[in-house]
């Protein structure tokens, strides 16, 4: 049974906190808010394919989740409206990439909405391989921390699982893992993904 979130503030805190709470927040936003239906209605109204809805929702949610964690959401609207806007823009962006000019006017408006910080860049297969290679170079402990965190364990739970001193240590460890990876890339330039040379 999912947690009953009273307002957007609680949802934001849960998404930032991680762990089971983050998962509950995702269930709430993803399923209970009716956002899927809203996006599906928009896409079908605009003549899009219904089959795209799940993909659009998933990718938009990733941007949404990223922006929430990095405090890029300026709270100028409700969370569901924010997610809907991202989904809308993501879908229009995707159409633009497909060279479909049907929604040209809306795409112009798209350029003006910078505060969404949406990541339009779609990672290609080559980059995915390079990213995976880099992830392979992480130490076992770092891999575990990253895995636990992204699989919705909070820092407190990560500390307990990995026998770390406390929540703050787990947080610091994650940061150090990232720093170590950056250092590893500096020492082994051949590991640098090609997209950063373009």
């Amino acid at each position, binding site marked *: 049974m999912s947690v009953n979130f009273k307002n957007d503030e609680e949802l934001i805190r849960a998404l930032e906190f991680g762990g089971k709470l983050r*998962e509950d927040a*995702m*269930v709430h936003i*993803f*399923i209970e808010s009716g956002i*899927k239906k809203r996006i599906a209605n928009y896409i079908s109204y605009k003549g899009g394919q219904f089959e795209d809805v*799940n993909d659009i*929702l*998933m990718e938009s*949610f*990733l941007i949404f*989740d*990223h922006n929430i964690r*990095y405090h*890029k959401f300026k709270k100028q609207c409700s969370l569901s409206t924010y997610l809907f806007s991202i989904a809308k823009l993501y879908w229009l962006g995707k159409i633009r990439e497909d060279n479909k000019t049907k929604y040209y006017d809306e795409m112009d408006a798209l350029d003006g909405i910078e505060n969404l*910080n949406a990541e339009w860049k779609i*990672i290609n297969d080559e980059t*995915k391989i390079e*990213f995976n290679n*880099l*992830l392979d170079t992480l130490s076992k402990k770092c891999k575990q921390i*990253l*895995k636990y*965190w*992204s*699989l*919705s364990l909070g820092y407190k739970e990560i500390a307990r699982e990995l026998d770390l001193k406390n929540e703050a240590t787990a947080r610091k460890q994650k940061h150090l*893992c*990232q*720093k170590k*990876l*950056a*250092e590893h*890339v*500096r020492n082994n*330039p051949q590991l*640098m*993904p090609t997209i*950063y040379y373009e």
Partner: protein
Amino acid sequence: MNNWEVEIDKLIAGELTESEANELMEKINADPSLKKFYLSEKASKEVFEYQIRNDTRALMAKLLEKEQKQSKESPKSTILYFTGIAASLLILIVSVVTINLSHSDTALADEFNINVIASRNGATFSDSNFTQALKAYFLNDFKTAKEKLALPAEEESLVVEYKDWLSLMILLKTEGSDSMEFQNQFQAILNDENHEFYIQAVKLNKELQLFWRNFVVRK
């Protein structure tokens, strides 16, 4: 950590203003070692984000699957819903049919027929015209029953109120409870508390006023 390292962290985290970011990017592009540091930091952060995205995507796929399962299950709920409606309709139809069978004008006339009432009251009828009218009524020969009722009785004063009631029952069966003729005769009995059939008239009136009678095919 050097000051520029902190600044690069802020740049990657998107915490610098546009002008600060542009200024720092100029410095980074002009200095190969700074650029190397910047790109490696950016790459490591994006690789972490990539992993997080992949795992979050997996979690969401799980949620989507769960949601789709629920939507697949929903037709069952829809079937149950419509089955419920069908069952309710069936109950309603059965109830209306039952009400029709027991509360139609004919059914009420049978319930309040003069024979039952006369036997309850212990009345006996010696008048031959009235008896013949009564017989014709029970044979559903309402025309003859009416004709016999119109003929004078041998002891008119004894059977006059019985004749009223029998006439009313004939009207109930032939013209129905909504007919003006029935209503006039019925009101006449209802207005006369001393009438032999006053109590039966009150009871019949209650039956005729029942809410469920709105669903009844009267005749």
